């Protein structure tokens, strides 16, 4: 079984641990063993060290990567921010002086960044290592007739030159759509497919601006695809779609709601895992879409 160091980040283990549970249940069945990286920290998030000091950022990200290097593994993370931050840190650590500076800091804690481990997103492992055929064979419920709007998220797409795997056209991403289609469901394109959801620095700096961007995107999804759910592979996008819809409803700006699932939650449900473990924590109600996914009539045999 192929092994990947599982880099959890913060959002997933603390705010949406049902996503973590979906990783732990889905991957081994698909032939990938997620291995814990003991003592890992925050990637560190864009608003922390990267906003203050480049070398300390590289040392902190470098330490997280070094923990995987010590196990001889590549890292896999389900958080787009972690994927972006760790990949960008690797890009800065290619600079010899920067690397020397970061390693000088790391010496104080007995670690060294060598640059031998690569950073992958959960999407990449599912799409490239496992493949859509294997996913198609593993689902117990066929989701034919269901429709999902996909949200890949910024930090999985740009800048494509620092990522180990990238989309053929990052302004027209297709990997997540193909993963959704492997469950039998459809994943139609919509005009704002690559638009930003407004989470991140924007949300913490100015909620109104963030909601404005989010609403544009949400209306495009609703009007053009009217999906059973939004499916994402970014934990920040997940939290924004899940929570900001309520904010817009409370303000009287929208009169509908669309449930939200992280992709491995959709997959775990389609594989027959227990919703109370793999899809249990949300603001926007997901009961109806979960029941439809695990509708006994969808079971092949």
């Amino acid at each position: 079984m192929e092994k990947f160091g599982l880099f959890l980040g913060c959002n997933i283990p603390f705010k949406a641990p049902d996503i973590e549970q979906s990783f732990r249940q889905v991957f081994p069945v698909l032939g990938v063993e997620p291995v814990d990286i003991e003592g890992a920290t925050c990637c560190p998030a864009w608003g922390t060290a990267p906003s203050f000091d480049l070398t300390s950022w590289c040392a902190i990200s470098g330490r997280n990567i070094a923990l995987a290097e010590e196990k001889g593994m590549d890292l896999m993370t389900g958080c787009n921010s972690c994927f972006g931050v760790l990949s960008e840190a690797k890009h800065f650590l290619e600079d010899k002086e920067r690397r020397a500076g970061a390693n000088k800091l790391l010496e104080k804690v007995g670690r060294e960044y060598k640059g031998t481990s690569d950073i992958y997103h959960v999407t990449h492992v599912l799409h490239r290592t496992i493949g859509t055929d294997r996913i198609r064979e593993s689902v117990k419920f066929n989701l034919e007739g269901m429709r999902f709007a996909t949200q890949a998220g910024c930090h999985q797409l740009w800048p494509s030159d620092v990522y180990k795997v990238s989309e053929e056209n990052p302004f027209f991403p297709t990997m997540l759509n193909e993963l959704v289609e492997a469950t039998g469901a459809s994943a139609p394109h919509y005009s704002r497919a690559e638009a930003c959801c407004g989470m991140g620095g924007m949300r913490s700096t100015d909620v109104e601006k963030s909601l404005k961007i989010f609403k544009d995107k949400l209306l495009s999804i609703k009007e053009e695809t009217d999906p059973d759910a939004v499916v994402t592979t970014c934990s920040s996008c997940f939290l924004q779609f899940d929570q900001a819809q309520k904010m817009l409803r409370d303000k009287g700006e929208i009169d509908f709601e669309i449930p939200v699932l992280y992709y491995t939650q959709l997959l775990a449900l389609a594989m027959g895992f227990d919703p109370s473990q793999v899809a249990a924590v949300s603001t926007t109600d997901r009961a109806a879409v979960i029941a439809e996914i695990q509708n006994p009539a969808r079971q092949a045999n």
Partner: protein
Amino acid sequence: MSLKLKKENIDEAVRTIMELGGKGILNCVQCGACSAVCPGVKAGFPVLCRLLIKKLTTGQLEEIIEEPSSWGCQACNRCTEVCPQGVRPQEVVFAFRRYQANEMAISTSTTTSQMNFYETGHAVYTESSKELRKQVGLPEAPPTTVSDAQGLKEIQTLLENSPMGELGFF
């Protein structure tokens, strides 16, 4: 005289940004491709990408120190992807943010994250996560620094020995 001052200002602004990580700033030809795809600009944070670079390359580093736009940057790198000149505008935005942060012109939103980061090793952390984790069948704490005293010590040492240690967050 004023022209000379201006040149000094420009040199200093550009040097500062380059030292803080915005190495490509001088390659900018002000084409505006970056701003056209920037969600921050779209949301109404105007001083990002092209305009930020314009202000910096005309020596206005200090004049815009309180400008909140940089803190609304999503670090999404759409700008970096489309820039025909290899400027990597996101790196310039973050270099400017570092300059602001070091002058304590920071967004209040970062303070809690910094403190969480030092105390737990995570920028985002809540005590209520223990219950949530148990509810979905996971151990109370993930195998990260929240359950690894040695790992937490390491991250605190790194933070204490970084310039962030001098800013008084922890």
